[in-house]
């Protein structure tokens, strides 16, 4: 059995208490909610924090709220499993339910949380390995060394952001609330990610993500999330696409369009030029082809996950073509998982 390294453990019962702990421990600590991302990293020796602050006992952070004016609120401790079942999410934000449904396995979704999935560590074939495996290679940048083993001799870390919720949240324009002993701040979910594989999250060490808010969807809006992975259950994405499209009337004039691609870079990336290409035009299959080509060009995977970069890049194009075609043909997105 793999043992966990020693650490001090606290489980604060209020947010104020949690903030005080984080103020004191800062970068020597790790926050824990479901533990499904943190515990494997501890077992592999990727992380060895001196303190673990378990947020699970903090009240009211597991609530889902919706109102037509202010939109959707998701507490950071909402379980991924609850997203799959919530009637308001299934009706108004189907992409969130789709993304939650394809995370890990039923057990992991019972344990994993919204906050944890948004704050998931980046992954790499050369990083998510036990100590003894890594010992036979130079220490990589993410482990504190100065070289990249995925790109021999590389000076930058390309570890892949592999969360399923983040692309959807960015496409839907979600904002995150972060608190610390110094106060509260509200940032776009997009701003949570640095693009640096070695240090992918922009939150300060003492900050705690307590929840996210999304605007109410406009009329005619459809959202989707599609994921490519080797197995339908358990696996992290190897490429993923989140879309938001607002179509107006019989003519299907596109009023808003956003595409975010995931698992092909160090952060979820909004595809530039999609809005300019599609907005205020009638959505057609020709336009969808152009959009798919834009997404293909924006994806720049490298050989550090369990499928070839060229295949993952091609899958981004395929997933986007399917998602937009589905929005155009009015078939309800997400009835069938497109992987």
């Amino acid at each position, binding site marked *: 059995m793999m043992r*966990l390294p020693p650490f001090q453990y606290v489980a604060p019962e209020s947010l104020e208490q949690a903030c005080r702990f984080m103020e004191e421990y800062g970068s020597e600590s790790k926050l824990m909610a479901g533990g499904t991302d943190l515990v494997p990293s501890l077992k592999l020796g990727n992380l060895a924090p001196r303190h673990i602050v378990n947020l699970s006992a903090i009240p009211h952070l597991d609530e889902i709220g919706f109102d037509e004016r202010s939109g959707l609120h998701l507490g950071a401790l909402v379980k991924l499993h609850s997203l799959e079942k919530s009637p308001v999410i299934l009706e108004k934000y189907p992409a969130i339910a789709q993304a939650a449904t394809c995370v890990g396995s*039923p057990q992991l979704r019972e344990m994993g949380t919204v906050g944890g999935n948004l704050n998931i560590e980046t992954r790499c074939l050369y990083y998510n390995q036990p100590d003894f495996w890594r010992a036979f290679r130079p220490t990589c940048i993410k482990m504190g060394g100065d070289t990249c083993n995925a790109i021999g001799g590389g000076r930058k870390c390309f570890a892949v952001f592999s969360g399923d919720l983040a692309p959807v949240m960015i496409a839907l324009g979600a904002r995150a609330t972060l608190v610390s002993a110094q106060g509260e701040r509200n940032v776009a979910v997009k701003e949570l990610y640095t693009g640096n594989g070695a240090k992918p999250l922009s939150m300060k060490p003492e900050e705690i993500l307590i929840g996210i808010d999304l605007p109410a969807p406009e009329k005619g809006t459809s959202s989707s999330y599609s994921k490519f992975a080797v197995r339908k259950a358990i696996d992290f994405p190897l490429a993923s696409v989140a879309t938001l499209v607002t179509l107006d009337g019989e003519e299907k004039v596109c009023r808003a369009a956003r595409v975010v691609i995931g698992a092909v870079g160090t952060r979820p990336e909004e595809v530039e030029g999609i809005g300019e290409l599609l907005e205020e035009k009638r959505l057609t299959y020709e336009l969808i082809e152009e959009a798919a080509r834009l997404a293909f060009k924006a994806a720049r995977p490298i050989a550090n996950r369990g499928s070839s970069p060229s295949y993952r890049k091609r899958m981004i194009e395929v997933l986007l073509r399917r998602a937009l075609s589905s929005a155009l043909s009015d078939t309800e997105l997400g009835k069938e998982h497109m992987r």
Partner: protein
Amino acid sequence: MKEAVSLRINGETHELFIEPNTTLLEVLREHLGFTGTKQACDMGTCGACTVLLNNRPALACLILAVACRSKEIVTIEGLRKGDQLHPLQNSFIEQGAVQCGMCTPGMILSAKALLDERPQPTEAEVRTAISGNLCRCTGYTKIVEAILAASNME
């Protein structure tokens, strides 16, 4: 630093004095002898260590035992009533759904969580419910049949 932890397992209270870096799986198997909960990948992938936490399936290898205070834990040992096996256990035996046995406790507990919530599931729901439990003998057909048969008995 060791902490006193009181855990409710299969309806009984167990007093432990453990380090916070002890997983629930270590406590179950090594401290208390509940070896029905299997250890396989130890990384949250295979589902062999599945237990029920407040009636929902969870992976004992990823849970800190100190985080399980005030939770109701059920392992495979907690399913039988006296000499009577649980209907799912009987069904697995009758349908020949046990091969090497390594995935069986986790499979049965995932199935129990499903049947408690949906007593008459479809085959697709059964397959989704056990999608986090890997069987390397690949005897999935009989496992699915056993769960469906148990659901019809109730």
